[in-house]
């Protein structure tokens, strides 16, 4: 069996994890293909009928051509379409913030762990200090300082999360640095960049993937929270959090669907990522297994 087959066999042992992976795959596919699969383009004013505003789930449209399975919002947008488009934005923002944070974390963690010394002490001090504050507070502080906007939200998410990756990588590097293959690479006088990125980095991958998978979920939740509070993405980028916020006022008058269904989509995304990440941890890094 090669590595991938063994990985797949180990992963398949948990039924829940398989279902979660399937749900996650479906959600990602739906987000990717949103313009193709959604019943309408919710932001094309020619397609949105104001007459159909705030219809309950399952209502027929006023022209009788189609059914709003998840109802419509205050502007008469089909909620299903709005959710698919919103999911797309949430995933793009969450994933790009995570990738950036991972890139920063890799460089900082590798350098700090490999060279040690003052640089390491300083960086880890900063990381510890930051980790002692909740991520939401770090993100809010940055948004308060930088102002609002898509790029700034991604920046705030990166700043709130890089330290997790840097710490993880540094921890692995401190162990791996003692191994013989690193001594061998040093004796061969390989360039430092090659030792760091070709020898140390691959060995950090299992831990990195596990932490990354868990952190994507929290990045998505954090973005949704910021957008819900009205300090996240601008209204031109209606992510799930914004959709939920828009429906909040109608929730009190019993029109639950405008914020309930986007919330459900957010929940399905976060839960499925968490379950997949849990299983990845068990497969890739059995030492971290709980119990």
């Amino acid at each position, binding site marked *: 069996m090669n590595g991938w087959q063994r990985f797949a066999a180990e992963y398949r042992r948990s039924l829940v994890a398989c279902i979660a992976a399937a749900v996650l795959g479906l959600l990602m596919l739906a987000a990717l293909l949103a313009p193709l699969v959604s019943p309408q383009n919710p932001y094309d004013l020619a397609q949105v009928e104001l007459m159909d505003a705030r219809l309950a789930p399952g209502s027929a449209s006023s022209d009788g051509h189609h059914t709003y399975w998840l109802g419509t919002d205050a502007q008469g947008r089909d909620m299903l379409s709005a959710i698919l488009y919103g999911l797309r934005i949430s995933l793009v923002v969450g994933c790009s913030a995570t990738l950036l944070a991972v890139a920063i974390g890799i460089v900082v963690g590798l350098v700090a762990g490999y060279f040690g010394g003052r640089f390491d002490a300083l960086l880890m001090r900063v990381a510890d200090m930051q980790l002692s504050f909740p991520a939401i507070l770090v993100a809010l502080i940055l948004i308060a*300082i930088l102002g609002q906007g898509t790029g700034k939200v991604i920046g705030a998410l990166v700043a709130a999360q890089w330290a997790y990756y840097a710490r993880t990588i540094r921890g692995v590097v401190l162990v791996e640095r003692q191994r013989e293959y690193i001594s061998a690479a040093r004796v061969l006088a390989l360039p430092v960049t090659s030792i760091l990125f070709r020898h140390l980095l691959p060995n950090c991958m299992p831990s990195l993937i596990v932490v990354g998978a868990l952190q994507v979920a929290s990045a998505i939740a954090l973005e*949704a*929270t910021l957008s*819900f509070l009205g300090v996240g993405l601008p209204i031109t980028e209606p992510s799930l959090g914004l959709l939920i916020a828009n429906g909040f006022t109608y929730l009190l008058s019993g029109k639950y669907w405008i914020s*309930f269904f986007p919330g459900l989509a*957010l*929940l399905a995304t*976060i839960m499925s990522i*968490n379950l997949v990440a849990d299983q990845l941890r068990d497969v890739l890094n059995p030492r971290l297994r709980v119990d």
Partner: protein
Amino acid sequence: MTRYLLSRLGQGVLLVKVMSLLVFVGLFAIGNPVDMFVNPQADQAEIARTTAALGLDKPLHQQYLHFLRKALRGDLGDSFVHGTGALALILSRLPATLELAVVAMLIAIVFGIPLGLWAGLRPHGLAGRLIMGGSILGFSLPTFWVGLMLIMVFSVQLQWLPSSGRGATAEVLGLPLSIATADGWRHIVLPALNLALFKLSLIVRLTRSGTREALTQDYVRFARAKGLHGSRIVGVHVLKNVLVPIVTVVGMEFGALLAFSVVTESIFAWPGMGKLLIDSITQLDRPVVVAYLMLVVVMYVAISFITDVAYSVLDPRVRLGGAAS
């Protein structure tokens, strides 16, 4: 011990200084605050006058020193929106937030420790597995979504509890508190529950793993061999050892509760500091944002200091100021 405390205190002061510098540079050096003070139709002379009046024509380090000097006197500027002192404005909202955080923490402790003990004593039973499953949900559900669901179920569908505001308050020791009136209690239940959920899950997990670990220890086996009653073993010997990490977490997480209250307060329109922060960010009310950030950093440093001290008192094994620091 004294040396350790002094060095911890020094670190705290340094952290506050670094944060004040960051906040100052971030908020005052980026963008031009004058634009927010003068009328857009103002001429150059008026802009220059306002700039001088605000001290913005001075070099940056002098501006920072001026800011620090005023901050040390408790003067962090006036709110643009409310026209009153920023710090006083925030402090007037502090009782509401503290009250919410304390009630939430109490909910988390009162329910979390027994549930965690139960799950730790019978890890493979149905109840134990349900409790753990619930705690995973509590961790991964976004706070604001849970808040919405609480409102949807208990306020809109069942109409049992109100969904916004503090309700009637009564003065206790000069502070207006909701928990002093029955109407206030009805208002605080949902937001406190919402805020407590994450901490509840955390305490359940900590208690469970602590219990499982303690059960395998020699002193528990010895107590069993001595023929002690099961409830005494759990209630005294196990619980005492489980409590040490919980005290630390409760202390550290209390600060996090104050931060997370931003979300809960916004949903339940609870008139605390967190809601004020969000309103101030959206209204570009910079002095209030600065004052909030400074206050939170100072509170954080103070809380972690108190937690460390409490930890060393509870657990004599912790050697403060030893080789570790």
